[in-house]
């Protein structure tokens, strides 16, 4: 019997069969729970809504032509997701710089672990915490002590942006940290030896060389923000909603599945377009792949 992980029996007939058996369960999952469902979504997106909700077979482009009916969700997502990504990068960069260049190596690992730990906590709970902080008993209550009354923070774009920055900051810090850490510190010394001021060294040496990390982090954060549901649902309170919220509404409340399917296809298309753009223009010819999670 040939079995797993032998590299030498590759190519033998029995080895092939074993490999196929090893890959069979994953193939079944990918086929039944990824490819087939995505295909069903595509088919549905050309259908019509059944009178009682659900799907009626048809072939029309009406759902796609009607996307503007949820234009506000697209507009919110396509303005707030890039803005949130930008804010995330601006907040993350100085910390990543501190960790990579300034922090003493003895505590660097600890500081890095401390960045990632909150990210592991359930997103639902972390955003719930901001509902407490920004809610009427939180910051507004503190501000009323100094005379600023009736400040409304939840259910605003501001709250959603805070949630977005908070939710994805670690994901931005890490790639920037990695790119700054790789940076040859002798370049910085050379620059200052040649008489460049610290700011000039930063702008002409450090920043350009760490842009790749900024780009990787931005892509990750942007993609996740595009599909966001919890942050606008809790902190936007129905006033600031994203495509994800529109989808939940379309599938679980108004049960207009074909239209919802078209909206999700549009969402995937926008995400793919941003990934392809990123690969083309940012990674360029280096042929590197963003390694998303590992």
């Amino acid at each position, binding site marked *: 019997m040939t079995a*797993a992980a032998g590299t030498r029996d590759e190519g033998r007939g029995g080895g092939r069969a074993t490999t196929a058996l*090893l890959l069979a369960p994953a193939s079944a999952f990918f086929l039944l729970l990824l490819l087939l469902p995505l295909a069903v979504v595509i088919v549905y997106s050309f259908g019509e809504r059944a009178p009682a909700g659900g799907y009626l077979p048809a072939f029309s482009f009406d759902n796609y032509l009607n996307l503007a009916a949820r234009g506000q969700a697209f507009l919110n997502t396509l303005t707030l997701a890039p803005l949130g990504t930008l804010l995330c990068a601006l907040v993350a960069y100085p*910390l990543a710089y501190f960790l990579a260049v300034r922090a003493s190596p003895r505590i660097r690992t600890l500081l890095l672990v401390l960045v990632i730990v909150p990210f*592991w*906590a*359930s*997103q639902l709970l972390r955003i719930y915490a901001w509902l407490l902080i920004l809610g009427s*008993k939180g910051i507004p209550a503190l501000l009323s002590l100094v005379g600023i009354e009736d400040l409304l923070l939840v259910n605003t774009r501001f709250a959603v942006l805070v949630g977005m920055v908070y939710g994805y900051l670690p994901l931005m810090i890490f790639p920037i940290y990695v790119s700054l850490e790789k940076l040859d510190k002798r370049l910085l010394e050379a620059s200052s030896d040649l008489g460049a001021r610290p700011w000039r060294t930063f702008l002409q040496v450090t920043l350009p060389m760490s842009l790749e990390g900024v780009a990787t982090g931005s892509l990750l954060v942007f993609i996740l923000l595009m599909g966001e549901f919890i942050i606008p649902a809790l902190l936007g309170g129905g006033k600031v909603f994203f495509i994800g919220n529109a989808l939940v509404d379309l599938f679980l409340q108004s049960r207009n599945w074909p239209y919802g399917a078209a909206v999700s296809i549009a969402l995937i298309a926008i995400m793919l377009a941003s990934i392809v753009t990123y690969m083309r223009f940012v990674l360029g010819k280096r042929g590197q792949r963003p390694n998303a999670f590992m």
Partner: protein
Amino acid sequence: MRWYALAIYVFLYLPIVLIVFFSFNSGRYAMDWQGFSFQWYGRAFANRFAMQALATSLEVGLWTAALSTVIGTLTAIGLERTRGWPRRLFDGLIYVAIMVPGVVIGIATLIAFVTLFGALNPLLAHLFGPDGPQLAMGRATVVGAHVLFNLAVVTLIVRARLAGLDRSLIEASEDLYATPLGTFRQVVLPLLTPAILAGFLLSFTFSFEDFIIAFFVAGPNNTLPIYIFSSIRRGITPEINAIGTVVLIVSLTLLITAQFLLRSRDRAVAGKG
């Protein structure tokens, strides 16, 4: 610079500290401190709906973790023996499974299951009569949708470990006339164990914390995150903080353990890594 770093760490931790702190509030409102009390923990554990949701989440999490770990490990080993287009195809599928947003996975699996069940149920009714078994959304569908994402994650983790394995150990074992299965069981598997365990813990935590996918495919069942989400919608009480604190402790403990297992690979026998 230091102060900025400190401010960011406060920003990162303050919300989590607040959740835990106000779970001990004796008052009725989450942010209105009235004094120290354990009462909300008592109430949470006496709350039948919360406990039912917790049981569902634990069951779904364990099934997800077990299936993802087994399938992901098999896939990693299988891919190690594969070259050419099948390997590229799997790489692509793994990235798609990870990158497609949860909300889309939720929708896609929802309508696929509903369509499939809609086609199969009349057949089942025909075969077993109107009182016979019928397929419906529930725990199994949540497990299915969770395994899809997590088997991809486990595959990546185990594969990274496999790639770092010292080939000479396998060759030594083969030179000593071990059968391929023997080599696998006595050499490869022990070396993979930390990665497999880490994959198990990561999958469990993902499933335990996931809200959006379960929201679509859980049917009438509440998982704990769904229960928490609908409680928040009804009004904020320290009971949510108490349940949240328990969830935080469970998931952070598991994830820190997983991370520790993954780090230990650097110190283990693994060679080229």
